[in-house]
């Protein structure tokens, strides 16, 4: 249960950072928090009480197969790598934006307003 609270809370804090801040790097930090929170929730869906990690290393585990759900772990493994790719690309765009505008603050950009 604490895992659901941790994941959901991290997601909400990330959303709050994304809504409140106008600094581009902090907005990307908030995006990373949201992603990590969702990962924790997905892993917690696959947890089964009293079972061990899905690595069949001993004879007993091979016979009984008392392991937790391996499918969410495989999905999250993909999601983490994609997440770092997204973060890297977003940060390179931020550097490019800074080279053009000279500021990281989004509210100083008047051309986006109408």
């Amino acid at each position, binding site marked *: 249960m604490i895992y659901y609270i941790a994941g959901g809370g991290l997601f909400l804090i990330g959303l709050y950072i994304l809504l409140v801040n106008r600094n581009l790097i902090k907005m990307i930090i908030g995006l990373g928090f949201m992603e990590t929170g969702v990962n924790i929730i997905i892993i917690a869906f696959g947890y089964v009480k009293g079972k061990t990690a899905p690595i069949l290393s001993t004879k007993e585990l091979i016979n009984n197969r008392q392991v937790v759900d391996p499918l969410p*772990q495989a999905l999250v493994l993909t999601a983490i790598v994609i997440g770092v790719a997204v973060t890297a690309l977003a940060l390179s*765009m931020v550097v490019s934006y800074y080279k053009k505008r000279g500021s990281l603050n989004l509210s100083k950009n008047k051309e986006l307003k109408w």
Partner: protein
Amino acid sequence: MRHIFALIVVGTLGLGLFYTLSHIPFGKGLSEVSKYYVENAIDKNDPHAGATNIVTDIVVLYRGFDTLGEVTVLFLAATGLSVFFFGLKKKEYTCEPSLIVKRGTGIIFPFILLLGVYIFVHGHLTPGGGFPGGVIIATGVLLIYLCCRDYKAPHSLFKVIEGSMGTLFVIVGLIGLIVGGSFLFNFLGAGKTGELVSAGIIPILYIVIGLKVGAELSGLVKDTMEDV
């Protein structure tokens, strides 16, 4: 004003999230698909099985095509990063790193490479796999860059490793297509469970992925730490 609005949005979403999550039971049984994966994990007759680590089994064999796409996305991100960083001047460093740091890095660096290679070679037996192993190798290259200002990494070597490994991944998949009738078919069989050379094409694919990710991210480190 913005804070109040953000609090309202976050509070509403939090209530919805709480309501939804309180209806999902925590720590109950497996889903149907996972039951299939777990029960067929080490099965001599099933060509899709053989790895001790079930997560590796799913990532590389059942969802191998997805992993190919994942590697491609990482490659695109590294390329985009180097494109955006092109032509930017980096900061000038004022001083040379001290002798202690240089010698310490010289001792540590081979062990970091060894750890990375160990993690992706043993990916089908223990936790780990191609992506963490590749990242650890890239971390070693970053350490070298931090301690030696004049170091130039062999960029063409990285490019050659990356391209040839990407091709090798597709070739392994195509051999599976010819032999077994499906892309990334496990044509080598399951082998003896628990040994280093087992689980068919999983070690080959993880070595390919590890070398590719390591070369890719080392190139990224080179692009960000050097004047281009």
